C-alpha cells in the first residue's frame, strides 16, 4: 500500500532573477513502511520535495496523496520532517524539546514524561534531560531532534540530509541508531542524502533525481539484508552504478 503518492506535482519559486521551476510533472510513490532514499545533484529540489510532502507548502499543481487522501497542510504530526540542522528550541531543555509535540497535543505531564524517558533511553541520552541544547554536542543534538520527531509517533519520517553536518564517526552511530529505531517501529522513511554510501547502507529503494526541474531518473530496489557494512562487495558495485547514473 502507498503511504505518500505524488501525482504530476509542479512547484516553482519566484525570485528576483526570475522564475525557478523546481519540480515539474513529478511522480513518486512511497510505500508504507519502506525506507526510501532520495539522491540527486545539489540544488535539484530535494528539500522542496520534502517540504511539500510534509505539508509545509502546497504544490502549484498536481496532487499529493497521503494514504489515498489529499494531503492537508496541517498534518497533526502524522508526517514529520527532520531538517539538516537539529533546530532544537534553544529555550527548552532536552526533555522540553522531545516533549514539544506531545504538549501541543495536550497530553498530561505524566504521560509526556513517560514517553520522553522511553525515547531518551532509545536515543541514548539518559541523564541529559535537564540540559539545554547549547550544552550538547552536535551528534547529541541530532539525536534529540530524532527523538522529538519520534515522540509524536508519526507514520512518515521525512529526513533532509539529517546527518550531513556531523563528523563521519558520529554519522555512522546516528545511522545505526536510525536503523535500529526504524526496524523497531517500521515507520515509512524518506531520506534525502548526498552520500551514495549512506543511501546504500540504509535504504530499501533508492530514487535518483535529475537536475532541476527534478524528475525521477531511476529507481533501484535493494534486496540486501541489513545490517549492511563496508565489507559487502555489492556496495562498491552499486556505488559505481549509481555514480554513473547520477553523472550521465
Amino acid at each position, binding site marked *: 500500500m502507498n503511504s505518500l503518492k505524488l501525482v504530476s506535482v509542479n512547484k516553482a519559486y519566484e525570485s528576483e532573477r526570475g522564475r525557478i521551476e523546481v519540480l515539474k510533472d513529478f511522480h513518486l510513490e512511497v510505500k508504507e513502511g519502506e525506507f526510501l532514499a532520495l539522491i540527486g545533484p545539489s540544488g535539484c529540489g530535494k528539500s522542496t520535495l520534502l517540504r511539500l510532502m510534509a505539508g509545509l507548502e502546497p504544490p502549484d499543481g498536481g496532487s499529493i496523496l497521503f494514504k489515498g487522501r489529499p494531503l492537508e497542510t496541517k498534518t497533526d504530526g502524522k508526517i514529520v520532517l527532520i531538517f539538516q540542522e537539529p533546530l532544537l528550541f534553544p529555550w527548552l531543555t532536552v526533555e522540553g524539546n522531545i516533549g514539544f509535540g506531545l504538549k501541543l497535543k495536550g497530553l498530561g505531564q505524566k504521560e509526556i514524561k513517560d514517553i520522553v524517558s522511553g525515547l531518551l533511553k532509545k536515543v541514548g541520552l539518559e541523564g541529559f534531560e535537564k540540559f539545554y541544547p547549547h550544552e550538547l554536542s552536535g551528534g547529541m543534538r541530532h539525536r534529540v531532534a530524532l527523538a522529538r520527531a519520534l515522540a*509524536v509517533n508519526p507514520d512518515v519520517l521525512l529526513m533532509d540530509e539529517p546527518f550531513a553536518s556531523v563528523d563521519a564517526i558520529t554519522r555512522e552511530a546516528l545511522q545505526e541508531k536510525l536503523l535500529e529505531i526504524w526496524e523497531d517501529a517500521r515507520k515509512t522513511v524518506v531520506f534525502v542524502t548526498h552520500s551514495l554510501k549512506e543511501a546504500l547502507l540504509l535504504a530499501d529503494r533508492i530514487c535518483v533525481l535529475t537536475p532541476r526541474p527534478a524528475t525521477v531518473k531511476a529507481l533501484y530496489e535493494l534486496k540486501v539484508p541489513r545490517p549492511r557494512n563496508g565489507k559487502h562487495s555489492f556496495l562498491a558495485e552499486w556505488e559505481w552504478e549509481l555514480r554513473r547514473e547520477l553523472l550521465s
Partner: protein
Amino acid sequence: MKFSHSLRGMLAIGAFLFGWEILPRLGWIDPLLLPPFSAVLKRTVELGLEGSLWGHMFSSLWRVALGFALSGALALPLGVFLGLFKRADPYVEPLVGLFRPLAPPAWIPLAILWFGIGDKPSVFIIFVGTFFSTLTGIIAATRRLDKDLLMVAFTLGANLKQAIWHVVLPGLMPAVFAHLRIGLGLAWMCVVASEMVAVKRGIGFMMMEARNLFRTEDILVGMVLVGLAGFLMDWLLRTLEGKVIRWRKGVSAHELLEARFSQ
C-alpha cells in the same frame, strides 16, 4: 566572579563620589553650584525625615509604573502582531515614523491642554515617550525571527496559535527584555521632564522648585534619587531576565570574546 563584578561597580561609584566630595571642598568648583556629596546626603536624610520627599518620590514612581505598564501592555502585543502580519505595514510604518521622532517634551503643551495638571499629563507623556520606541523595536525583532523553528513546530503538528505561543514568543524574550530596559530608562527621562511643567508634585517638580529657591542641594537630591530609582528598577528587570532567559547563557558573543581576551 559575581562578587568581584559588583565590587568593581562599587569601586567605580566610590571613585566618582570621592571626586564629587573633594572638588567642591578644595574650592575647585563653587560649592554653591555643586555642593559636595556629603551635603547632598545630609539633605536627603533631612528631607526624608521631614517627609515631603516620600510624597514626591511616590508620585514619580507611580507615574513611571503606570505609564510604562500601559505602554508595554500595548506596544508588546501590537509589535508582535505587526511584526508577524506584514499586511498592516504600509499603514503603520509611516504613522510610527512620523510620531517616533517627536521628543517626549514636545508633547508637554498638548498634554497639559488635554489633561490639565496632575498625574494624567505625566503618564501620557511617559506613554508616548516610550510607546513608539518599544513598538518599532519589537516589530523589528519579530521580523528577525527565523522561520526554521516555526517549520519545526508546524511539522510537529502546531496550529497558528500554538506556533505563536510556543515558538514566536519565547524566541522574542531577549528582545522584549532589551526593549523593556530601554523603555524604562526613557520613562524616567519623561517623568522628570513632565514634572517640571505639568504637575505640582514629583521629583521633577521638587527639583524645579529647588532651582527657583536656589537650593542646589535639593536639585542634586532629586537627581540622585532618580538615578538610584532607575538603577534599581533596571536591576530588577535584569534579575527577572536572568530567571526567564536561562538558555541564553553561553551563547552570546561577548562571552567568547571575554574568555579569549581576558588572561
